[in-house]
């Protein structure tokens, strides 16, 4: 029986293994430790940036900014983007991208409105129909990506136009006024309902956004489906070989994304009061911005959905803070641009050191 030690090949291996072991013995430098912490908790960076920006604007503006009212105003202002960013996060975790989120949102809200006012369908049923339409739009995206194997960017670039055009054609570019909704189907404005605790003002939409993100965060971490979403975003082929039904999981992700966008459409009615086919046109770019600043990797499989909420809030803090400072609105875009690039650079750094 030949023994391993006779072989040159294996002795080379042995030496290599020793070298690796020695390397592992080095104490990690502080920088490596930071990198490791970020690797394990990817939402840490956006959380720190969020808290720091609140502190800075609080210091500059005092109680005008640092009040329950102003801080909860930020929540209200980001609720739509926050909800859509939750949908976008799911898709981006699978290494995809969804450019049609805003179009699905508007189309769903238009369906809710038109079904109620054009066909006289009861409000709750119309809402359910809107949610179903959003889910169906998501299914179309998912089917094209998973079954037809088309790149998500191209698929959703196409469906973005298709859904938006459908929205205009179907609604005949007609806005449904807030007073009419209030009188006939107040349930459409349900997400706009306000309640206050002390000086803090919350809406149902804000509560929904926070609950949604906490819920999705839990599902992604503690269910098999959630693990599969990460696995297929990380390496779809490996996931397939190790027993994940990649196609089904992908389609389910796009469907859920569509459903969440439809909820965002419902929340949109609550936020602006009316149903308008021209609203929310830039939700896709805003949601991608929130997700990227939130530290979710565009290459898929890395990041946490909490980060997207922080990302959306960072944008909200900068917008309100700079406005209260009297700065030109362009400064908001300027800083958001800087943050996006910084976030992607941090993502690359985390990957490099961990490899």
């Amino acid at each position, binding site marked *: 029986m*030949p023994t391993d030690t006779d072989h040159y090949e294996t002795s080379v291996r042995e030496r290599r*293994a020793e070298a690796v072991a020695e390397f592992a013995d080095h104490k990690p430098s502080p920088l490596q430790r930071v990198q490791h912490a970020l690797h394990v908790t990817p939402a840490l960076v956006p959380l720190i940036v969020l808290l720091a920006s609140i502190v800075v604007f609080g210091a500059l503006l005092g109680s005008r900014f640092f009040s329950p009212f102003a801080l909860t105003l930020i929540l209200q202002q980001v609720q739509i983007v926050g909800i859509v960013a939750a949908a976008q996060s799911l898709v981006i975790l699978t290494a995809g991208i969804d450019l049609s989120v805003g179009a699905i949102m508007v189309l769903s809200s238009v369906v809710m409105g038109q079904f109620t006012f054009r066909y006289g369908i009861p409000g709750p049923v119309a809402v359910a129909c809107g949610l179903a339409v959003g889910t169906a739009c998501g299914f179309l995206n998912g089917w094209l990506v998973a079954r037809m194997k088309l790149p998500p960017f191209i698929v959703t670039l196409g469906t973005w136009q298709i859904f938006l055009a459908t929205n205009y054609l179907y609604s005949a570019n007609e806005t449904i006024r807030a007073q009419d909704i209030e009188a006939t189907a107040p349930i459409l404005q349900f997400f706009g309902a306000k309640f206050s605790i002390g000086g803090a003002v919350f809406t149902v939409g804000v509560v929904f956004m926070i609950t949604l993100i906490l819920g999705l965060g839990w599902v992604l971490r503690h269910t098999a489906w959630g693990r599969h979403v990460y696995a297929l975003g990380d390496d779809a082929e490996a996931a397939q070989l190790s027993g994940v039904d990649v196609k089904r999981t992908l389609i389910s992700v796009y469907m859920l994304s569509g459903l969440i966008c439809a909820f965002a459409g419902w929340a949109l009615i609550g936020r602006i009061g009316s149903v308008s086919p021209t609203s929310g046109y830039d939700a896709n770019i805003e949601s991608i911005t929130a997700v990227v600043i939130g530290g979710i990797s565009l290459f898929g499989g890395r990041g946490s959905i909490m980060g997207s909420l922080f990302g959306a809030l960072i944008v909200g803090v900068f917008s309100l803070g700079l406005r209260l400072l009297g700065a030109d609105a362009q400064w908001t875009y300027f800083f958001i641009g800087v943050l996006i690039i910084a976030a992607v650079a941090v993502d690359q750094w985390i990957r490099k050191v961990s490899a």
Partner: protein
Amino acid sequence: MSIGQKREPILTGRNLVKRYGKVVALDHCDFDLYPGEILAVIGDNGAGKSTLIKALSGAVIPDAGEVRLEGKPVHFTSPNDARHAGIETVYQTLAMSPALSITDNMFMGREMRKPGFRGKWLRQLDRPAMEKFARDKLNDLGLMTIQNINQAVETLSGGQRQGVAVARAAAFGSRVIILDEPTAALGVKESRRVLELILDVRSRGIPIILISHNMPHVFELADRVHVHRLGKRLCVIDPKNHSMSDAVAYMTGAKVPETEFETA
């Protein structure tokens, strides 16, 4: 002793064909695995060994040909189908998700859920149970140089990764275990552990397909050696009656066997 014909094979392939464009990776290839044996598959780089085992494990759907498990034709359309049938595979690429933990990877696609309401309705994973299982399996392999069962697979060394993949297959395989170069990245000690594990699996009565370029390992473990050349089975030899240089000569085409099943 004549090899082969005396018992019914557990897993067979007949006339398997797989083309990638102009490349014929499998060219009317036959394959037989008998109960309780260790079958080594050897062949040059690009001979089609990995493609063969992928066709047997559902990862590749052959263009033509038939796969039978215990005599019954099977048509695996995904690796999951084969896994449900009890065929567990360590792929050459290992098929692991780098960003996920060791535990997550070991249970990918067959996660354990908590008992009661939380498992049934919330579909919550039973992490403590999964972690314990994973730790035990890695301990069996003597791979506990790994400190943290929840560390991401990408933070493991190549050898540790391979160890985790082998542990996963050994833990779940019930009918057939396929190992595509399971010791390629392993050190001497770790290779030894894997070889012991292979013998251990066989002593549980589970047959093993072992692809390897390491001739000493092949000749030490295998009951039969399937020599693969240019997309098909060239011959099957008994390692007790052939030298390593014979095997290498067949593999590289320097020598041509007289019959497909050589006898003593």
